[in-house]
């Protein structure tokens, strides 16, 4: 089963968490990115994510494989939404299970950072003032978004 998926509809997180349960796992870390009501001080009304799905799923899969190798975790998976999202909607979910919490936290953090930096997904924001636009950041920094 693939570890990374692009979802064009809202998805349940319970089965994602359940597939990471493992008798050897003592620790589980998860990250969720939610659509928030502002970005860099501007009120946001909603947004749209679009992906180059074929390449996004291949690159996401590569990131999760690298995380398993790099952090010695037991398993990990991630799902990223595309389409129209409203404030409070779940945009991305990442989970990692490991024997110990160091590895679970570090892997989870690394995966979301890599997904944001490498996976071909683009965010289109609509602002309260009527403006709208694609976000093409110059560089992904740890605090650029959720």
């Amino acid at each position, binding site marked *: 089963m693939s570890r990374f998926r692009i979802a064009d509809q809202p998805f349940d997180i319970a089965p994602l968490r359940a597939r990471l349960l493992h008798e050897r796992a003592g620790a589980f870390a998860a990250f969720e990115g939610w659509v928030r009501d502002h970005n860099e001080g501007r009120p946001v009304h909603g947004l749209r994510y679009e992906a180059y799905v074929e390449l996004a799923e291949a690159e996401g899969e590569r990131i999760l494989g690298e995380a398993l190798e790099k952090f010695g975790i037991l398993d990990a998976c991630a799902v*990223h939404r595309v389409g129209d999202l409203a404030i409070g909607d779940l945009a991305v979910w990442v989970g990692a299970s490991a024997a110990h919490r160091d590895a679970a936290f570090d892997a989870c953090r690394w995966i979301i950072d890599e997904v*944001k930096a*490498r996976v*071909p997904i*683009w965010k289109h924001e609509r602002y309260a003032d009527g403006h709208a636009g*694609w976000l*093409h950041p110059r560089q992904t920094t740890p605090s650029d978004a959720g």
Partner: protein
Amino acid sequence: MAKVTLLYFASLRDAAGASSETLETAAPDLSALYGEARSRHGFALPVERLRVAVDGAFARWEDAVRDGAEIAFIPPVSGG
């Protein structure tokens, strides 16, 4: 001449007014191919800020343009 399909996403698609186009090109490499598309559509993003993919896998700008290839110009990503 090579016949290729170009895929456009996000701001490139908006500027091109199309999510893909099929055309014949004499561009020697992918970088030159983007240059052609950029002047035709008025893309704001310089090649240095993009990545390129061929047939669903990341490629290098200096790669030759292969006949029949599906080529995607990848603007800076903003997922998450």
